[in-house]
């Protein structure tokens, strides 16, 4: 396939990625969506999830916690609140975070606390998953 799209991922902290890729799959708030070159104009909010992109026939992974994605035929701009590349995530710490969040969830408490705990568990599990992917040579 000839075409390529420019994928740019920015967070309030920095420009995380700017690269020509062949395909992107992003976690839209209404479900995952895939983008190939020549996609129509599209704007979506993002939920907590995994962003995949294929560059030189290799899939790479990235964690996204909320944000927006703008798609044009030649370009995908992801504005994430928080984003991390798989290879930057520390698996040990991610595992710890999962356990901590699980404990917090079990401990219960006010509804708002439970909600917080659920979200942090979701975040922690996602980071763990993505970190594992990077480790097991998927990328």
């Amino acid at each position, binding site marked *: 396939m000839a075409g390529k799209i420019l994928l740019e991922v920015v967070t309030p902290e920095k420009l995380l990625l700017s690269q020509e890729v062949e395909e992107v799959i992003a976690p839209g708030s209404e479900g995952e969506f895939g983008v190939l070159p020549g996609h129509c104009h*599209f704007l979506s909010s993002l939920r907590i999830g995994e962003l995949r992109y294929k560059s030189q026939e290799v899939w790479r992974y990235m964690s996204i916690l909320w944000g927006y994605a703008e798609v044009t*035929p030649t370009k995908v701009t992801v504005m994430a609140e928080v984003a991390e590349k798989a290879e930057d995530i520390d698996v040990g710490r991610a595992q710890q975070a999962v356990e901590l969040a699980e404990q917090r969830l079990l401990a219960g408490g006010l509804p708002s606390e439970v909600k917080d705990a659920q979200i942090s568990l979701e975040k922690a599990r996602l980071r763990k998953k993505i970190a594992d992917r990077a480790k097991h040579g998927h990328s």
Partner: protein
Amino acid sequence: MPSLQSLRRKIAAFKNTQKITKAMKMVAAAKLKRSQDRILAARPYAHKMRGVLRNLSQRVNRSAHPLLQKRAGRKVEILVVTSDRGLCGGFNGNIVRKSAEFVRQCEAQGLSVNLSIIGRKGRDYFRRRSWAIRQEWTGVFDKLSFEHAIDIGGDLTENFVKGTFDELYVVYNEFKSAIQQRVIVEKLFPIDTDVEFGSDQNLPHDSVLGGSYLVEPDEGELLSALVPKHFQIQAYRILLESAAAEHGARMAAMDGATRNAGQLIKKVTLYYNKTRQAAITKELMDIVGGAEALK
């Protein structure tokens, strides 16, 4: 001829001043480093956001969200971003001069102009000249955080929706490099699709017009989250630009002051030594003259 003692005092005073300016330079340099990192990190996100909003406002119906409206009103507001502290060279002077000039331009076109001001220096300047100031924020640069941007962005969006103004321009110092600042006049409201006075030349701006956007979840929901956020982000970026520029300007100003103090010290010291030498020579002449007389 000034006495030796008064010269000594003068030298001591210059040395003290030099110590102070040197210390201020060091402090500014340390702060500059930090604020420079912050603005450089925040820029890509803010610029992308603006790009998206520009594309978006071309493609959606502008009445879809109150903050996207374009009104034909004649009320202009100018947000002047200055610093809280002085001793930073032309930093504030450039801003207020540019603002005043811009106000006159607008008034010449028959627009009514209001001011809101960030920073103590700008407030003092315009207050002394008893210009009408709608809103002022001071002390934000002491501990600059995103909260301030939410506060300022919130006030601006609220007043735009209320119709306090139809257009808003921001006058601020852009951080170009550690020793260079540039005064920028930027239009914040309404979102404009054409290029502005601002700096970013390389905004990707695809000219393919028409063809509506697919938006997910529904348009209203997305816009009401995204658009206010855009203004907060832009306010934050502008505050960070100004903070970094301020520290840069102060560092340069204090560097100059230290150097000037050094030159003055050199000059006065030379004069002091000459005077001292002259006094000694005179005394010697007296002694020699006295000895001659005794022979």
